């Protein structure tokens, strides 16, 4: 009844985030907002109303000092291989059918029913509650490549898709192969700006890309793997408690998680 067959892509853009390197500085969030022309809100006090395509969560091992530890987890859209959001959209305003495996969001098509938001367990989808209003002067700093969105549509991270398009264009212009971009030719704003290099990005299926190996590391995990949405975003941490917080299965200590988390 899901009506959706998981599609295989030759290129699978993915992210590997090293949580031991992340300091929670929030530069990735800022870069994301700038790159994607997200207007500042007049009142952003309600954090459940903000547009945070990339959101940094704080995690704690919930222990008292001196054993207390925290970690920060940047959460972009997971670009799931088996997305929960795509098959539910009544108007095909979101799809996963382009080579590269990025889940698209078609703003002029979206009717704002928010069914995709209800479907996404990662809360990666955001509703545009108010018309974007940029303070005077800020319009000069807008990214010319990213469209702004009207009020009433759902939006989300798309791995800075315009950068993907630009990287392919550049490859064509310089005699390269747009279907085999070298590592680093296409880089989302968050990965580019991260001061500690915690965010790696590339084609998960291309052995020449760094993420190919990183995603296979023994300390790599994905969020809520048990739900089988097959995210294309991986996390890495040497700390077991951090890895366990990636999935309820591991967090509750139930059997079935040993292979991946201990």
């Amino acid at each position, binding site marked *: 009844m899901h009506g959706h067959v998981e599609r295989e892509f030759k290129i699978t853009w993915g992210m590997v985030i090293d949580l031991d390197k992340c300091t929670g500085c929030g530069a990735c969030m800022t870069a994301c907002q700038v790159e994607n022309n997200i207007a500042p809100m007049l009142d952003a006090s309600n954090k459940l109303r903000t547009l945070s395509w990339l959101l940094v969560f704080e995690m704690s091992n919930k222990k008292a000092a001196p054993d207390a530890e925290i970690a920060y987890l940047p959460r972009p859209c997971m670009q799931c291989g*088996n997305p*929960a959001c795509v*098959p539910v959209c*009544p108007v095909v305003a979101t799809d996963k059918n382009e080579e590269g495996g990025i889940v698209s969001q078609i703003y002029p098509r979206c*009717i704002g029913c928010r069914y995709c938001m209800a479907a996404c367990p990662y*809360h990666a*989808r955001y509703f545009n509650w108010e018309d974007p209003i940029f303070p005077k002067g800020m319009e000069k700093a807008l990214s010319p490549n990213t469209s702004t969105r009207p009020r009433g549509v759902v939006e989300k991270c798309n791995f800075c898709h315009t950068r993907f398009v630009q990287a392919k264009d550049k490859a064509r212009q310089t005699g390269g192969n747009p279907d085999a971009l070298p590592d680093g030719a296409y880089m989302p704003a968050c990965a580019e700006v991260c001061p500690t290099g915690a965010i790696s990005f590339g084609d998960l299926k291309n052995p020449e890309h760094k993420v190919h190996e990183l995603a296979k590391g023994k300390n790599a995990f994905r969020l809520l793997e048990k739900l089988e949405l097959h995210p294309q975003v991986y996390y890495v941490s040497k700390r077991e408690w951090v890895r366990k917080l990636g999935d*309820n299965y591991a967090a509750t200590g139930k059997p*079935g998680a040993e292979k991946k988390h201990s």
Partner: protein
Amino acid sequence: MDRALFPDGVERCSFGKFALWMVFILAFFLFGLYAMLLIFAKGIVVTGLDNYFGFGLWITFDLAVIALGAGAFFTGLLKYILKIDQLKNIINLTVIVGFICYSGAMLVLTMDIGQPIRAWFGYWHPNVHSMLTEVIFCITCYCLVLVIEFVPLVLEQKQLNKIPFLHHLAHNMHVNMALFAGIGAFLSTFHQGSLGGMYGVLIGRPYALREGFFIWPWTFFLFVLSAVGCGPIFTVLVCTFMEKLTGRKLVDFKTKALMGKIAGTMLTVYIFFKILDTWAWANNYLPSTGMTFDQMFYGIIYGKWLMFTEIILCGVVPAIMLITPSIRNNPTMLYTAGILDCIGISLNRYLFTVQTIAIPLLPFDSWHTYAPNWAEWATSGMIVAYGFLVMSLSYRYLPVFPQERGMNR
């Protein structure tokens, strides 16, 4: 002053009293209309919804009224297709209730979507894999069927019926009503089922997700059964409320008890399968996702008491009451069971809508709570007021109750 418009042989209150009543209802309606216009002007930012709770009171309200309005298609099916003739005494009322519920739900949906002027995209760019597409198609089509079923009743208004063309039109529509009853039953079965499917296919939401056999046909029919398990008795409650309000007898108790029996039978079948479904979900599916039954609940606002109230107090209890003749045939007990039944099914829709998305799935995330704000209550109240207006006008001017004349001699 409007006596000439009344159905033959019935008494209605004075026009002044009726006008006062309408003004009273209009006050609620206009307050909701103000909220609606504000929402259209400023967007749904004026509501209590947020990024965690994209669905809230409105969707719950929609699903609940669509279930409660199921009396129309199911009674139509029993009356016109299965030929249970006694239901003719209440069939008109079921149609009006159904019409109010469905047209009201559609009005709420236009407010609920972020881009109301794109509402037609559901037809123009349909995603055939989405349960919501199926719901959009079926609800709008069925609403049209309800209009077709309502029209002959309007045409039978005393003065309109004197016009030969309208008289014949109404007659011929009545003659072919079995066809529309059949279409209505077909469409309704699909969208009631798909409303359940809407939640059942959410692969990232363990509270709602059902896999394999438990989504099709199980969840599909659970929603159909729950709707027909409350729709007929809701019509009885509306009828009884109208009787209390007007002081007149409108439908004989025998017919009401029959509607109670129909709803009770359906509710019993439903609640049996619902309990099996919940048991299988808690013992098989949930552990497979690494989650526990306890993790699905939080504090009082999202506590287990909601689920137990839904299934036991407002499910098993009214089911037993309605299928037991000695209880069902006692008016007070029948209405009590009816109220419990309707609360239970509405609560079911609330839990599938709000509890489903309230549960934090990321282990490092926390519970958030949702409370509808005034704009959502006011607009929902507007739909209720709209229902009162349509029902008041219909009762005053249309021959809704064939037994009324005889019962009030």
